[in-house]
């Protein structure tokens, strides 16, 4: 247990140190907001804490911060419109604290949900077709020899370049246009990984199956597919990262207002960089979350694997 705490504590501390340095750096060198907003300003897009100071001594902070310190001499009436959206109200250290939803929380969450749906749809489509074609090529050597060179070649091309074409084919506002981009991006690494897993079976393991007079079908299910699991999950990990990239970058070329990529480009175009940053952070968190889900699934699917032995 202690080891686990230590394992997670170190990166969390690093994150806090980076955020504090960033905050102090921007504040002390007076870096312009449009170049690099402070973390506290970015976070204020999601939520704000209004802290009512008991005395007049504290200096009033600007109202676009994560923590807004309000001295007693500031009239609360002016803050009423903002405070109306409060979701929590409590006191701590003798101060009243009001927690308010950030102005961009709802639009960003809505956009995140929309983009996540595109990414997941593309993930499902790309992975399933990649695996199916891989199974076919592993079964019929001719198909493998015919397809693999193209798959390997396509895997090293910037498939995202097709995004405008997909937008044109399926319509800018149709989430399927982004799913198609994601699916094509994922298809090749997924197929290549699966084929490798199905084919790179130990010769002795195959001979063992032959000595039992096992059918091709039995060899597939009892040997080739279990053997391909580590390769399959490597494919899933690559696909998880690509799916968020594909969806967000696909949206950079156009899409409905309620999509993360569109939100980011529009906010940036209007010089509202703190909300653009907030949306970027959410996109990153979604990417990491997808990856973690795959890691957890991997542990469940193959607890026997080398990487989980201790």
């Amino acid at each position, binding site marked *: 247990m202690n080891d686990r705490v230590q394992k997670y504590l170190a990166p969390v501390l690093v994150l806090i140190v980076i955020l504090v340095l960033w905050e102090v750096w921007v504040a002390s060198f007076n870096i312009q907001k449009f170049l690099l907003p402070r973390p506290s300003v970015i976070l204020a897009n999601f939520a704000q804490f209004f802290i009512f100071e008991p005395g007049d001594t504290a200096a009033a902070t600007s109202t676009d911060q994560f923590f807004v310190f309000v001295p007693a001499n500031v009239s609360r009436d002016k803050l009423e419109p903002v405070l109306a959206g409060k979701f929590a109200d409590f006191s701590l250290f003798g101060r009243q604290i009001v927690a308010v939803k950030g102005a961009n929380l709802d639009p960003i969450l809505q956009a995140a949900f929309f983009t996540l749906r595109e990414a997941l749809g593309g993930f499902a489509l790309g992975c399933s077709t990649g695996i199916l074609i891989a199974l076919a090529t592993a079964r019929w050597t001719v198909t493998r020899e015919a397809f693999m060179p193209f798959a390997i070649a396509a895997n090293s091309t910037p498939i995202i370049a097709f995004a405008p074409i997909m937008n044109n084919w399926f319509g800018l506002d149709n989430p399927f246009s982004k799913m198609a981009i994601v699916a094509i991006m994922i298809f090749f690494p997924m197929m290549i990984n699966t084929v490798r897993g199905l084919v790179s079976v130990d010769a002795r393991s195959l001979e063992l199956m*032959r*000595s*039992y007079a096992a059918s091709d079908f039995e060899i597939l299910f*009892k040997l080739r597919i279990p053997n391909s*699991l580590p390769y399959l999950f490597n494919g899933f990990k690559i696909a998880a990262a690509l799916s968020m990239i594909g969806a967000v970058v696909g949206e950079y070329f156009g899409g409905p207002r309620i999509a993360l990529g569109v939100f980011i480009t529009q906010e940036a175009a209007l010089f509202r960089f703190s909300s653009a940053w907030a949306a970027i952070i959410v996109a990153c968190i979604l990417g990491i979350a997808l990856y973690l889900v795959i890691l957890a699934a991997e542990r469940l699917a193959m607890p*026997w694997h080398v990487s989980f032995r201790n």
Partner: protein
Amino acid sequence: MQNPVVSIQNLNKTFGEGTANQVHALKDINLVIQPNEFISLIGPSGCGKSTLLRVIGDLTGITSGQVLINNKSAHQARLDRDYGMVFQAATLYDWRTVAKNVQLPLELMNYSKEKKEGRTREMLALVELSDFAKHFPWQLSGGMQQRVAIARALAFEPSILLMDEPFGALDEMTRERLNLELLNIWQKTQTTVIFVTHSITEAVFLSTRVIVMSARPGRITQDIKIDLPHPRNTDTRENVRFFELETEVREALRRSESKRE
């Protein structure tokens, strides 16, 4: 006399026939093996002993001659699941527990659930690994893994056990213990064993007959009957007759080497 388990006549096997790297792997092999014999194939590396084993197990084809296993072709014998195979590497499936590995052939042969579990329990008891049924292969030592492989090979009661240097990668102590264990198992199960090795001691200790082979082309140079009494145990290794037989095999090997020069 009973029908022989293995009957090989004028067997020849050539790899890469008609090419520049043509290798005459097996030349004019004649070999008859009776039920419940324990046969060791011994010879220098490259003498084709593993190839001969693989021919018997129908894992590789032949160039000419005749191979009959239980009075049918080797191919038919494989389809009839007459063989249990044990390789030098245990070749357990990483994703299966010990018990599930032993069950693999039983699954393929559609045993009922009760029979599958019953057989697995019996086999794990036979190789003394009952406490490890739920372990994964990586949690076992090399010797234990090889015992699981033997349990798996015997699980479906094949009439012939083919073993290709099964203890070659193990240390001397483990090898001697497993030799004893294998003899016990062989006597309990009444299977015919064909065992490839390059250890003279191991061959003499285990076998009822030692077949000495020579290399390039691989052929049988001597067929030595091992008349040590059964059951054999650690004392057998200190028996005078044991040393005589060891010497006989060693000299046969030397002769087959020098003949080549």
